[in-house]
């Protein structure tokens, strides 16, 4: 462990030159949000352009910083910049500082680059919305909070970004909150996230009590000498936080409903960036998890369960966005699983996170483009045959589809295959269980994504009479093309070249040379066969045979998956109903019990209960007098006994 930690903590140098501009990355989108939200209607005309320029500028700075980091030696790629003293009380000294290292650089590039593309896309997608300016304001707010989250150099500053993205997510899910269902979805997301945030809060409390500080350097240095018990609790609390933010089991229920937000939001926040913050948290806290194997095991279990859970739901959904949401949950399950594996998996968790950021954003924006053409319909049973009328969307979507199912050569293949390999590393039962879960998941992913692709773009046209599908304008299709290129090539560029593992090594350590329990070539072959089988099955089922425009009843498993495997039913009966009952009885108790008792006591003091009623007509003096007498007696008694 000590060698690992030495690798994980390169000396952080003071940032200079363009690297010292980290604050500007956050300040630019924050300025955008402030101008758009405070500027009001005056900014309507140019607000969307201003709002797009901010993340674009941040992206340029990020690219310059990336270039500056590349010029440095691997050990010197971790630079910090101190901004100001935030909460100094006694031994607690929380500074606001930014840490730019290879890990945060990955996120900064992903967030600003994909974020900018999605801003551009939104110019077209939201063109007819009267509140487009407000939308861009919220998006800017999100980008600022997300960048703060990944650039923070302490857990408490990270917390600010952490809940900041939660707020942006809340505002954007409820962007059309005049629809009561959407408003409820927004609240559900925030509350579920707060349950996770409880974990982050408690983690911060433990950190200060144990290590005397909450900055990464203090906590990780302290973790070296801490007991396994402390680190396990700390790890589990961080995992709870990660589960809330990343929609992992058992806090996954909000993500499907979150699709109420406009589709660019689903692409940016609920697919590419925010929901992966949990993975970031676990990887960032590696020194804590390294000392807590039990917590790591739970991370792996959560990842494995969620990846299968999401995949199962993905197979049954007919709503294109909800199917994609289930897929997001499942793919993050893969990342979480990898992150729980330790050094063997960290780099691949981040690798999959990056490729997923591209192809899932592309898929969501593609779905948005379809909805744009189909009058905002989302029911895939009413799609079909769109390949001929939306050629650009179709082709770009195809890249995303092939990437996510792990078609050989495309991005998802490189990153997911590595996770499956890593999951098969180890001794005893674990590699067999977790590796197999990851492997089977790949097959199911191929099935449901092919189903989604075929139901939307191929087969018979099952359109309702009132739709006239058309291709989206260039402002929307250009981002699709860029993301398609990323979906195709990013994996090839980073994976087989070893670039990503090498880049992240100073932060997460070398991944070692452990061999999986099944030979790598055999494993890759198995994966590809399973993927092709899953895709073929879906193709045969949904392309060769007609798709019913209303969903058939289906098996019990289908019905359960359609209802998200009863996650809401469980939450309602375990938490919401008892909670509502508790609240109601407490309100009753407070009105009758506590208040009643006090009123009763007052009545006793005053004499009769009839007098109590007269209180309301103003018989204060008698009470004051009687109490004054009482006090006088007390005082007299005290004086008498000389205390």
């Amino acid at each position: 462990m000590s060698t690992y930690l030495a690798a994980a903590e390169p000396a952080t140098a003071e940032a200079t030159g363009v690297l010292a501009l980290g604050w500007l990355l956050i300040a630019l989108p924050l300025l955008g949000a402030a101008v758009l939200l405070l500027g009001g209607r005056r900014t309507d005309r140019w607000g969307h352009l201003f709002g797009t320029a901010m993340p674009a500028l941040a992206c340029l700075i990020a690219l310059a910083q990336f270039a500056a980091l590349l010029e440095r030696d691997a050990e010197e790629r971790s630079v910090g910049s101190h901004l100001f003293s935030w909460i100094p009380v006694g031994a607690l000294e929380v500074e606001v500082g930014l840490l730019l290292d290879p890990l945060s650089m990955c996120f900064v590039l992903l967030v600003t680059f994909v974020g900018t593309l999605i801003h551009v896309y939104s110019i077209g997608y939201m063109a007819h919305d009267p509140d487009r300016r407000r939308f861009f304001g919220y998006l800017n707010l999100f980008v600022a909070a997300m960048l703060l989250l990944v650039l923070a150099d302490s857990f408490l500053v990270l917390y600010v970004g952490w809940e900041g993205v939660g707020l942006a997510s809340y505002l954007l899910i409820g962007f059309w909150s005049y629809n009561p269902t959407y408003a409820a979805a927004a609240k559900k997301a925030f509350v579920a996230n707060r349950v996770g945030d409880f974990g982050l809060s408690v983690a911060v409390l433990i950190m200060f009590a144990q290590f005397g500080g909450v900055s990464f350097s203090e906590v990780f240095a302290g973790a070296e000498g801490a007991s396994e018990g402390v680190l396990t609790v700390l790890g589990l609390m961080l995992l709870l936080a990660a589960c809330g933010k990343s929609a992992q089991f058992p806090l996954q229920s909000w993500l499907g409903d979150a699709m109420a937000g406009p589709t660019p939001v689903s692409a940016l926040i609920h697919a590419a960036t925010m929901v992966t913050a949990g993975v970031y948290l676990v990887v960032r806290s590696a020194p804590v998890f390294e000392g807590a194997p039990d917590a790591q095991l739970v991370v792996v279990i959560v990842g494995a369960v969620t990846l299968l859970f999401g995949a199962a739901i993905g197979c049954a959904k007919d709503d294109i966005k909800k199917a994609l949401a289930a897929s997001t949950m499942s793919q993050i399950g893969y990342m979480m699983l990898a992150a729980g594996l330790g050094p063997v998996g960290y780099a691949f968790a981040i690798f999959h996170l990056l490729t997923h950021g591209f192809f899932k954003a592309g898929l969501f924006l593609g779905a948005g483009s379809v909805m744009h053409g189909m009058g905002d319909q989302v029911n895939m049973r009413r799609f079909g045959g769109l390949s001929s009328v939306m050629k650009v969307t179709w082709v770009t979507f195809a890249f995303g589809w092939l990437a996510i199912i792990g078609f050989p050569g495309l991005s998802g293949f490189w990153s997911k295959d590595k996770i499956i390999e890593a999951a098969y590393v180890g001794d005893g039962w674990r590699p067999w269980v977790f590796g197999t879960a990851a492997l089977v998941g790949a097959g199911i992913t191929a099935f449901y994504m092919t189903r989604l692709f075929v139901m939307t773009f191929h087969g018979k046209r099952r359109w309702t009479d009132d739709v006239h599908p058309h291709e989206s304008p260039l402002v929307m299709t250009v981002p699709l093309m860029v993301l398609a290129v990323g979906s195709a090539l990013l994996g090839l560029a980073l994976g087989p070249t070893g670039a990503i593992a090498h880049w992240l090594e100073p932060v997460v350590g070398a991944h070692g040379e452990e061999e999986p329990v099944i030979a790598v070539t055999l494993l890759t072959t198995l994966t590809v066969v399973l993927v092709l089988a899953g895709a073929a099955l879906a193709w045969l089922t949904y392309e060769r045979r007609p798709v019913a425009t209303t969903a058939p009843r289906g098996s019990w498993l289908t019905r359960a998956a359609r209802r998200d495997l009863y996650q809401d039913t469980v939450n309602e009966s375990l938490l919401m109903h008892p909670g509502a009952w508790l609240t109601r009885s407490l309100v009753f108790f407070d009105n009758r019990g506590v208040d009643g008792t006090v009123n009763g006591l007052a009545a006793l003091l005053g004499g009769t209960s009839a007098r109590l009623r007269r209180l309301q007509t103003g018989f204060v003096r008698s009470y004051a007098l009687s109490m004054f007498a009482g006090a006088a007696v007390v005082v007299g008694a005290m004086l008498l006994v000389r205390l």
Partner: protein
Amino acid sequence: MTDFPWLTTLGLVPLVGALVVAALPSARELLAKQVALGFSLVVLAGTIALALQFDSDGGEQFQFAETYEWIPQFGVSYALGVDGIALVLIAMATVLTPVCILASWHDVDSDRRSAKGYFALLLLLEMFMIGVFAATDVFLFYVLFEAMLVPMYFIIGSYGGAQRSYAAVKFLLYSLVGGLLMLAAVIGLYVTSDGGPKAFLFENLLGTEMGTGTERLLFLGFFIAFAIKAPLWPLHTWLPDAAAESPPGGAVLLVGVLDKVGTFGMIRFCLPLFPDASQWATPAVITLSVIGILYGALLAIGQTDMKRLIAYTSISHFGFIVLGIFAMTSQGQAGATLYMVNHGFSTAALFLIAGFLISRRGSRLIRDYGGVQRVAPMLAGTFLVAGLSSLALPGLSSFVSEILVLIGTYSRYEVAAVIATGGIILASLYILLMYQRTMTGEPTEHTSQMADLNTREAWVVAPLIAIIIALGFFPKPLLDVINPAVDRTMEQVGVTDPEPAQPAAEGARP
């Protein structure tokens, strides 16, 4: 620092203002309001001048101190002075007063009673608020503590809602019970003290020798009075009635400032004067405050009346404040003090914006609203920001104080801190449920014509929100003032912060 009696002057300005306003002819309502606002702004300017001269590293505990003999036979002096804790609370009170005056501009126009009376009462209340935080003589503190009830009683009883008499009397009775217990304890304190013409001076009472039983009794006398005022569960039931029936401006000063006298009293008087008894009572107080945090939050979730809901959220927040004070750590107490200030501003924003909403629709019931966001986006947006501050969203001021309280509590009482942290989940429910029910959805027949914030209302809300955001990101100026005062309190109680279990190696600090 000169010998100029800053604090007395600061207290006299609102008193003169109240008299001037009261003396104006009843017909000149607008003038009365303008004069009241003018005086409150002068007080605010004076407070700013005072704060700028305050030396946070000053050697003396109390600055701007004034001491005059008042009733030497009983050891009573007229003594004022502020430390960091008192200063930030006075600053909060003097910011909130003009805000409340401006917010209440038309609240009492249609009332049976003259509008000028209401504004005179607000100014009178401001004088008492300044005095009670500045008093360094225990007897003087007691007198102001009790006298403060009078203007508040009339604000609720004369200008309140339908149930105002019941609420006002209930408020008065609860307060009187507490006040009388405190009076008994004050006299008891005199008896045990060394006597002399300045016996009641805070510094002369410090370290008074007394038996364990006596100390505990006296502690309880003070503590129960403060716990009613704060209010701490289960002594809270007067607050929802009083706050709901009071006009919005009065509710803000009641919940935002007056109740803080309770928690202020705990940290200023209970802890330093009765250090051993305070530590003896700590487990019980911690338990009550944790219950209060969850109880207040659950009750808030179940409310149907907006103002009662906000009142219950305050009960939950007061739980946090008391928890921080009795955690006996510098983080806990500094957090609690900061919480008093932050809670004042965020609750003021909530009450006042809710008041604006209620003045448009004429109902306090949540179910009578819906879809306001569509027709009045500024009203809805500012209400949301105020709510987010109440649920302690990081980046807004309450977060800093809440996390400080929790951090400070955890290092001594792990279980209590973890349970209290559960309050953050409930907070998101009570705020967002209220927002969802009132602001989202399609506008109803009653809300579809609702006007957005007008200029005056925007001027009321803007400073509050600016402060909430500024203190969220940069609380250091306040903490710099609060920290030395808290350190001194800890010293007087005789406690030190616990050491971290596994301190990071030296040099690990960034």
